[in-house]
């Protein structure tokens, strides 16, 4: 599946800007951006994006907590979520994988391959029953 519309959630404005530019310019996708977990949930309900790229460490509602809220809501529970984390350790990755997210990407990311990586994860997601 190649998503047409992706919701980008990160509290760091610079990263939002760079990632959005990368996804739009390289992938040609439509990108919505949210700066915190709560507005991400609201936007996910309202816009129903094809996928959500979610930062892990955010003030108030962090990535895993936001993901849990999204899963609880039947309106958003079917939207695949990819975590974006600055924590690159094996233990953290294993913990995130257990949450049930579609995949995890680490920061810093290469803007030229970011869309490809997301597409790969979502494609894998689709083929797994």
């Amino acid at each position, binding site marked *: 599946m190649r998503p047409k519309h992706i919701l980008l959630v990160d509290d760091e404005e610079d990263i939002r800007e760079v990632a959005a530019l990368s996804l739009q310019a390289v992938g040609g996708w439509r990108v919505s951006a949210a700066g915190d977990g709560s507005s991400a949930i609201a936007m996910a309900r309202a816009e129903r994006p094809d996928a959500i790229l979610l930062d892990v460490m955010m003030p108030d509602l962090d990535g895993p907590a936001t993901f849990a809220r999204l899963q609880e809501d039947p309106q958003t529970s079917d939207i695949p979520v990819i975590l974006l984390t*600055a924590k690159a350790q094996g233990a953290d990755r294993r913990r995130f994988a257990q949450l049930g997210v579609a995949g995890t990407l680490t920061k810093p990311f290469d*803007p030229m391959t970011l869309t490809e990586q997301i597409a790969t994860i979502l494609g894998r997601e689709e083929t797994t029953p």
Partner: protein
Amino acid sequence: MFSLASFSPVVRWSVRLLWVAGVVGLAVFVTAVAGGPGDPSSDGYEWLFVALFIVPGLLCLARARLIAQQRLPWTLFGAGMLCWAGAEIVYFVVYQDQRAAPYPSASDALWLTYYGLSIAAVLALMKAGLARFRKSLWIDAVVGGLAIAAIAAALLVQPILASTGASLAAVTTNLAYPLMDALILALLIGVFAISGGRPGRLWTLIGVIWLLQVVLDTAYLYQAAAGDYAFGTLLDAGWPALMLLLTFAGWHKPSIVKSSRDQTWPMLVVTISFAIVGLALLAYDHWRGLNDVAEVLAGMTLVAAFVRTTMTFADMRTLANGRELSMRHALILDAAGEGVVGTDARGTITFANPAAARMTGYEPGQLAGRDLHETLHHTKPDGAPYPTQECPMHASLQDGTIHHSDQDVYWREDGTCFGVEYTSTPIIEGARIRGAVVVFRDISERRQVERAKEEFTSVVSHELRTPLTSIRGSLGLLESGVLGPLPDAAQRMIQIAVQNTDRLVRLINDILDLERLDSDVEHLRDATCDAADLIARATEAMLPTATGAGVTLAVDAAPAAFEADADRIMQTLTNLISNAVKFSPPGATVQIISERRSDDVLFSISDSGRGIPPDKLETIFGRFQQVDSSDSRQRGGTGLGLAICRSIVEHHGGRIWARSTPGEGSTFSFVVPTTPDAGDEYRPRPGGKLGSVMICDDNEAILEVTGTALVERGYHVILARTGEEAVDRAIAEQPDVILLDLVLPGMSGVQTIVALGEHAATQKIPIVVLSVLPRADEEIGRGAIVDWIEKPAATANLFASLERAIGPRDDAFRVLVVERDPAVAEILRALFARHGVMSVVSTDGPQTLELYEQMRPDLIVADNDLPDVDGVEIKAWLRLHGQLGALPIVAYDACDVQAAEHDRCAVGAVTQMLTKGQMTPAELHWRVMTLLARPRTTTPPREARS
């Protein structure tokens, strides 16, 4: 006083009646003899007098019969009193005139029997009632007895000699009484001294009684010797009164007399007092003259006192040495910063040093006597109860090995807890586990530091990466040209910025990685890995890089299983391969090799690069150490790769090193230890469930093969290579059976059998001869030889012979495995054997039922897929035969259990229903062990699983 309430009314009233009879009888007798000898009112009271000995005698016997404590002494006292009664009867009936009695008379014999029994009774009381019954008490009694007898002789011998005409029999008989009295009195003085002057009520009462008895006996001897004695005075009332008093003492509840802390000084004072008595008597003899008997006794008293004093001083020196040594040990333990706790075999604390008390918040001395696990370790860090079976300290007491943990907490007296690191070491004496020593330290501070470091690492990781993400992203977009073309110079600058950003990211990753490895934050996840598989995966990952550099990867990997964190070993391999590729010229080949060795797996990565100078071979594994400082820029390394590799390998208990010929290439090698295999099981360890077997053979191969087979089977194995060693170790370790070769160097097998037979500790140990010599049937049954097996022996024969020799072991768990596939059966048998569980394999239904009859297993593990019978049917059969008690059955199936099967299981036939494909042998084993761990008498709850 002991209560009679628990006895039947008949017993109660009989005892009370005897007491009343004794007291009333004594009162009547006293009234009758008050007038003095020859008083007509006392005539005919001889038989009342006799009865006054029979009544307390019967009461003593009743006491011994009714009350479990101290039966022997009171039986002896009772029998003694009846002897006295017998002596009086003989005296009244046979020797109506005392002067007509010969020396020694039948009465004398019975009286002296009374004294003998009384001495035995006092000794028995001492043995039962003294916390420490010392052999030196005998010497003390001899010294005291001699001294008292010397005094008695000085006072009595003269009149006795005068009255009896100095016949030897008369003197001996008459002197025997004071000697006996003296001996008993001396024993009681010993008890008094040992208890430090506080012997308790029972001993005080007995002491007073005996003192009075000595007075009475002396008075009697005086009167008798002077010819003044006649039956029927108040003196005669004294003895029965004392008997009643002694009986009364017997109904007192005895308390254990604690030895006073230091028995040396009181005993020394008593001994020296006796020596002074002896000296005084000899001095008196010198000036005024004494009889010969008193002289000899006084001399002997002096000699005995001298011997005793010498012994005391020797004791004191030993004690002082021991005290100094133990004081030094105590000082060491007191000064130790770590908590040190000793337990007995059941896990009860017997000792705790001040640090242990301080850390746990208990008063020093408050910990002793408590259960270690229940007191300090009862709850897990997450608040869940910590079962004793899971406790590593408890495990030390069970398996006799050292256990260590730094994941647990100890609980203080006030209910708070602290992180603890402890090592529990069993105390093994001979083949028995006597207890354990647990050394622990409070690591809550260390954990706090670790947590802080982990937090810091996590924050740094996030805080550094966040700006880097923006930088890298912006630069990447600029570099790619998607935002529009850049001038060439600008493009080049952006390129440099991207490369260095990437380098910075790698550096941060490596620093954090190394930090985490070194601080143990991330624990290695051990799993069984295969060397060849890891190399294949690492090579595959590195192939694009190698291809890009024009380098060929040549792999020669041998499969080898070992326990390791696969991701981390992969990381090491890719790192080393990446280095090798980086430093290889295009067209070169990098060799990747793995090799299974005896205790480890060796990995080697060789390149044909520029090589490493000898002085750098070691330093390159340090942080930021590269052969050439320009490498990090040119080759893109961080200078931390090899440091990470070393840290990973060392965390696995392995080693990493480099060899190089400058100009020709380098080889990086590392080893990771393999899982300890059967070789480790071979160590003699206590607790082989089937019993312990000593194998004595000079052939190493036989020791190893037979030893391994027996350990696998569940025996504890002791190895001896010579006859001498066999005898020594058999005495020390007391095996249940000895497997003995006859042809041995030095002491031969036959000589060994003789030597074993001569020693009391080994003569009962059965011997099975295992020899190349042909079986000699006539030898079987001679001495301890119970069987003779010819080498080479079939293991089945050997096992059968050992089982016959040792006999059935009630404490060994027996599992009957019903399995058609020999491979699966073998795996199960090996798993059980490792835990000392005996298992027997049956391949079909009829054999199962037959074996069940023979071995009465504690558990049946059955394959459900047998052609003629399955687990459900076995259970049905057992129920039919009334055998269905607590016996759990584990039935497992090759395919998923069908619904119909489920229903059958639910009827109550099978305890656990397992499916083969969905379970590893380890899991099956675990489930089976859980079942075995249950009490054998309760019916396990039903549980079905498909």
